[in-house]
């Protein structure tokens, strides 16, 4: 009887550890067009003052919003308006921080290639200033939730 209980505990432990490893990181990529004037998207009203302080533009419009589960140590590609790509590779968790490799690609050119640690459930921004959205810019919001 004791042996059965012991084996059960081991199986449960292994299964729980395995399932924990298998739990993917939820990555949300939101493409936002920032411009000097025009209406702002209601979804961004809460963060509009923060965005204004960071980038200096007044109006923010969501172009695309995609949320996806990304497996650890696997590269996931998010397509953005204008033919750009965001590559995200979640590398691991440490002390409540998500370690990731993030790359923004425009054709053959890597605009940003970075390794970073982001607070779990936090988000960061990548702003791309090019002629596609001129006189505005493209803002890429990246959120990670374990």
């Amino acid at each position, binding site marked *: 009887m004791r042996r059965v209980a012991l084996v059960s505990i081991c199986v449960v432990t292994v299964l729980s550890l395995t399932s924990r490893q298998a739990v993917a990181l939820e990555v949300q990529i939101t493409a936002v067009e920032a411009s000097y004037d025009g209406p702002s998207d209601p979804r961004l009203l809460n963060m509009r003052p923060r965005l204004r302080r*960071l*980038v200096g533009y007044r109006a923010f419009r969501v172009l695309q919003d995609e949320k996806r589960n990304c497996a650890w140590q696997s590269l996931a590609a998010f397509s953005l308006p204008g033919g750009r790509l965001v590559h995200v590779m979640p590398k691991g968790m440490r002390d409540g*921080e998500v370690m990731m490799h993030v790359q923004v690609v425009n054709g053959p*050119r890597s605009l*940003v*290639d970075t390794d*970073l640690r982001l607070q779990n459930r936090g988000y960061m921004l990548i702003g791309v200033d090019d002629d596609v959205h001129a006189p505005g810019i493209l803002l890429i919001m990246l959120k990670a939730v374990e």
Partner: protein
Amino acid sequence: MAERVMTCEEAAPLLDAFVDAELEGATLIDVARHAASCRACDGTLQERIALHETLGRHGRADADSVDLSGLWTALEPQLAQADARRAWRRRLRSAPVWGGALAIAASALFFLSGPQQATPPTRVAVRPNQAVIERIDSEGGRFELRRERKNGTTLIMVSAMGDDLP
């Protein structure tokens, strides 16, 4: 004899010099040893190293945008205490013999008054969007790092055309 480990108050003012490799060998090792055992200082150090590298590669990176205000808010009371302690030690060293007797009496009083509340270790508050850039690169485009103070929201701004950034 056990080696004395540097405290956060002692390490904090040396972090910039550490990153710039301006410290003497022994101090350099002390700071490195402290950072290895202190997550807060290690985080600060990593941030500064990343920034240092970014500035080195791209002279236009905006050093002023790095927000260390939270760190200094947390460290200032500790630094003030450390300064006060140092000032007292200097005064005691220059005091006459009766000063020594007074110090012994004060020590006895301190000892008899029971255990003191230990000073809690310095902790830097983690902000909800805090991000640490460990490495960053860009093919041709100009970029800079900006950080919002309240939530620590980080922005990597890149100019794909190589123009000045808005």
